[in-house]
């Protein structure tokens, strides 16, 4: 029996710090609670959106819970959503790791009377009340390829380094870009399929080194996912080939500063994730208050949004392009 007591005491000790740590986050009741769930927590992109979402919560005087899995695993995301439904919240905004996987749990949420939104990456359109897009996926993909052509010219070999082979939104942009290039830039030659880099700069660096050697005529590299362009730029920089190989991609301006500065990364293009987080919370809040988004509506701290004809797909606006000249003026 004594042993059991020891065990209990130890557990008590172990968990008491948890209580101490978490107590400041206890939800205030009777207040609107909006959950914003990224694909995963702990990466710069979703950190930035967290600050936006939390700021919006403060501005609107509502409770925003920003939480997500520690790995981009759809299973973990579903489990967490189920728990949050149990917790009883008013709206769930999710950036799904996998759209189809979310459908059952989002249906459950709806059944429980919770407003369901997706953001960053679309979920199953039939279950969401609103869909917040940073951008139109097709346009974005085409934009990236336009930038590529602007930097390397419209003929020659190029390669794609991507975050992961099964990341849905990255694949959407790449597919859109490839389809566009086929029509618009027939002179472009993709040397090999998109190369996965595990969402790591180190791997992107290594793979780009290999690509440069495997395809000596390489003139351009498209980096999709935030660490990928940096790794590619680093490889090109170190090989002293920044003049012959153009790297463009979707990176955050602050992290890519050093590479933009010497033009080993020619152009980065992305939206401000903080604004996206902010907009998501505002849209959820408005929706809960019965307000529908309007095309051309001006959202404080975000700007003008556009809304599709379906009345529920919200587009934040065009991405910002960063170059050597202007990157320092961005704060994300």
């Amino acid at each position, binding site marked *: *029996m004594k042993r059991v007591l020891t*065990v209990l005491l130890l557990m008590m000790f172990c968990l008491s710090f948890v209580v101490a*740590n978490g107590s400041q986050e206890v939800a205030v009741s009777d207040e609107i609670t909006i959950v914003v769930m990224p694909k995963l927590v*702990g990466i710069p992109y979703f950190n930035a959106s967290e600050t936006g979402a939390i700021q919006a919560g403060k501005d609107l005087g509502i409770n925003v819970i920003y*939480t997500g899995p520690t790995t981009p695993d759809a*299973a973990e995301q579903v489990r967490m959503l189920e728990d949050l439904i149990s917790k009883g919240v008013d709206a769930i905004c999710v950036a799904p790791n996998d759209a189809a996987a979310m459908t059952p749990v989002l249906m459950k949420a709806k059944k429980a009377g919770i407003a369901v939104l997706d953001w960053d990456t679309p979920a199953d359109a039939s279950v969401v009340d609103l869909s917040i897009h940073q951008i139109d996926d097709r346009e974005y993909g085409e934009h990236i390829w336009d930038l590529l052509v602007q930097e390397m010219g419209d003929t020659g070999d190029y390669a794609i380094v991507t975050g992961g082979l*099964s990341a*849905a939104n990255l694949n959407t942009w790449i597919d859109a870009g490839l389809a566009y290039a086929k029509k618009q830039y027939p002179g472009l030659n993709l040397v090999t399929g998109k190369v996965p880099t595990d969402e790591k700069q180190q791997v992107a660096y290594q793979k780009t080194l290999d690509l440069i050697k495997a395809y000596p005529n390489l003139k351009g590299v498209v980096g999709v996912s935030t660490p990928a362009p940096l790794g590619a730029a680093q490889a090109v920089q170190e090989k002293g080939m920044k003049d012959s190989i153009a790297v463009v991609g979707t990176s955050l301006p602050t992290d890519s500063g050093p590479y933009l500065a010497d033009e080993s990364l020619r152009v980065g293009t992305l939206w401000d994730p903080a604004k996206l987080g902010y907009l998501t919370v505002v849209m959820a809040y408005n929706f809960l208050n019965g307000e529908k988004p309007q095309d051309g509506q001006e959202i404080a701290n975000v700007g003008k949004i556009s809304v599709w004809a379906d009345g529920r797909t919200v587009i934040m606006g065009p991405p910002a392009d960063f170059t050597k000249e202007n990157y320092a003026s961005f704060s994300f």
Partner: protein
Amino acid sequence: MKSGVKKLIVSKEGILFCIFLFVFFLMSLLSPGRFLSWYNLQSMAYQLPEFGILALSMMIVIVTGGINLSLTYTATLSMIVGGMVMANISAAGGNGILAVLAGIVIMIGMASLCGVFNGFVVAYIGVTPMLATLGAMTLFEGISLNITKGGAISGFPFEFLMIGSGTVLGIPIPMILFILIIVGTWLFLERSKMGMSIYMIGCNPKVALYSGVRVKRIIFQTYLIASVLAAIAGVLMASRYNSAKESYGSSYLLQAVAASVLGGTNISGGEGKIAGTVIAVMILQVISSGLNIFGLNRYLTNVVMGGILIVVLTINFLTEKRSK
């Protein structure tokens, strides 16, 4: 009678169960009214089985003295292959129930192939389990990616979704399946002749061989059975997520090892009880859901789980030391 109760309480499983009760109680206090709601209990009952079955699958392999790092990719590869067939039949306008049956049979068949592969490399070629399954993990992931090209397989018939979300008499079907599997694996491991051989092989394969036990065959079969269990977890996942993808459940892999060990399974083989693993799975579930509802930072939840693993094993060490 009294000493029997006492024995039960101080057994490894007894201590674990006390920890479970304590954690459960604590979580109820942390989020009053929320954690202990009917909805949350039911929601946990939906979540628990897929992980629980994977943990049991991992456990029986660990008892043989092995480990299966390809566990989650076995589950996802089989759900992708089976899911494809199911979606195709369904898209062609085939009978839903028939499609589901065909899909499940193929999932189990595919997992069996994975099990045969692992079992052959481990038992007959004699490669250390950790390495064989490490290689298999990469291989299965590669095959999955090759099939899906990075996308998800979806479009399952409605009947299939019922497996993961339906209830019978108010009890979620996954839970019923889990209970059946607990009973099944318990009978298999702790009551059957093969299970008893597995324990002995886990302790000392040489003695088992010298006693006329067909060691290679039993190890081979264990990997096969463990893979079939993984496929069942795969069925649940595919059904609950309405789709199949190679990365589903990847976070369950090391958690399954942790649950087995937390449940008292000896990582070097030969010891471990089904009850222990099941309680450990319940503890991890309650902590995960409880802290999530409570609103603790997800990373601190990981810290707590890692801490509990170390603390419980330290307690085991101290009590064992004292009893010696």
